[in-house]
């Protein structure tokens, strides 16, 4: 049994089909990359997995149990956490308070949540800025904060949505390192990314989405050579 099983999922918005018969699996301990040109439907897939959208057809199973129709907070409770493409911090709360909200996923006790949050903040490298208001953090720090908040919920699977966008090369290297450390802790990852270098380096397996359909899947090197994939990206540039 795989950790995550997406089975021929389709999502329609009125007359528009955003995702069409999309299938994907993530095994325990895997890092899977999800790539595709802009508008391919990648974030829609994340919304479907995390419960913000309900599929028009198909099945989604997390740890063997269907999550279709479950609310986002219930899915998070089960162990699936996500970040957002445009970071969504709680701007008027401090970094610590932000992460505590995630920590409360597993406990009702304030002290325990605080403890967990401090650990996670240190882990992502934000320990020194724990009392800074989220609105005053840099973009790079906000991305770390979002990942920290997700990690505090003790997920088994973490969905990362373009965490590298807007970061400079040094910051990208740092985040790659952080993702590796997260993986080493036993968290499986499904990563949407445009920064090719990063996703090629991190992923064990890559799935390519184009116009809502899977057009390729395989090891990074295979996918990079696949003519349909190249066509899809070049076609977008033209």
């Amino acid at each position, binding site marked *: 049994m795989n950790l995550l099983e997406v089975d021929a999922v389709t999502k329609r918005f009125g007359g528009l089909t955003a995702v069409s018969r999309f299938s994907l699996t993530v095994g325990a301990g895997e890092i899977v990359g999800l790539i595709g040109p802009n508008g391919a439907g990648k974030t829609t897939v994340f919304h479907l997995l995390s419960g913000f959208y309900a599929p028009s057809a198909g099945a989604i199973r997390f740890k063997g149990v269907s999550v279709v129709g479950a609310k986002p907070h219930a899915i998070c409770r089960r162990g699936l956490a996500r970040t*957002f493409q445009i970071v969504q911090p709680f701007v008027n*709360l401090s970094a610590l308070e932000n992460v505590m*909200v995630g920590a409360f996923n597993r406990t009702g006790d304030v002290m325990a949540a605080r403890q967990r949050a401090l650990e996670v903040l240190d882990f992502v490298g934000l320990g020194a800025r724990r009392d800074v208001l989220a609105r005053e953090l840099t973009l790079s720090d906000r991305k770390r904060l979002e990942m920290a908040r997700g990690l505090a919920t003790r997920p088994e699977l973490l969905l990362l949505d373009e965490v590298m966008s807007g970061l400079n090369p040094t910051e990208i290297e740092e985040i790659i390192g952080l993702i590796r450390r997260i993986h080493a802790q036993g968290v499986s990852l499904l990563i949407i990314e445009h920064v090719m270098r990063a996703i090629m380096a991190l992923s064990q397996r890559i799935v390519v989405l184009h116009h809502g359909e899977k057009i390729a899947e395989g090891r990074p090197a295979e996918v990079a050579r696949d003519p349909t994939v190249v066509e899809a990206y070049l076609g977008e540039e033209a």
Partner: protein
Amino acid sequence: MTGEVLAGLALGLLLVAPPFLPPYFLEILISVMLFGYLGAAWNILGGYAGQFSFGHAAYFGIGAYTSTLLFLRLGVSPWLGMLAGGVLAAAFGLAAGYLSFRYGLRGPYFSLVTLAFAEMLRVIAVNTKAVGSSLGLVIPNREPAPVNFVFAGKLSYYYVILAMAVGAVWITRRVARSKLGYSLLAIRENEDAAEASGVDALGMKLRAMAISSFLTALGGTFYAQYFAYIDPTITFGPSVSIQGLLQAIVGGAGTVLGPVVGAFVLTPMSELSRAAIRGRAGVDVMLYGIVLILVISFLPRGILGSLRRRP
């Protein structure tokens, strides 16, 4: 923490000074405590959860009418009636809240629907003979009987409302330092991100609504017992709703002491304005309007909200 020391000193003064105050000041202090109390009750849903109710008068009215009717018709002590009113209001709040939140009403739409609910209750009260229609209800027997929530002098009423206000502040503090409090703040800041972090937004908002509506209703009973007269406009009308939110917004929504601070600023201001321009109703509310505009424009986090500094 100088804030806590100051608050403690203030509380000490509030406990000890009133027996020596002239009646006029005692009356004002009672108003301050009542409005601070209502503000604190509103604050839990409005300031912490970020759900701006414009119709909290619904709960105030339910509280006032429930205890008064139970007392007048069945001889039930208003102390018990107060609890009954609170429970009834909480039930109504949960129902209204569930409908609103379940159907995803947020922001201004939530405010509008709460306004509609309060107005509906007011219209029903006006048209129901059994509750006195627009003439309202009078509590006739003013013979002191503490067991029936009727006191000889204003001083006793003062201590009751002081206790209620302190209680409301204490409850706010407890909530703020709990999982509920953090969850509510998260919902206020970004409901979707909160959900994605495991926060049951609907459940948490309903909890806040239950506490807020219960407390507000108790205030309604106090009002009924203190003034011995209620009618649909006083209890279900927009002015009560506005009073509650005004204290919280001016003093600092989402802070523990904000509503009380707001009441200490707004009530004397209102009294002074009415004393300055006698015989013209509405001067105080006119000022409220100006204060609201100024606060939103220049001090949007309210007095205490703006004073808060973080390292």
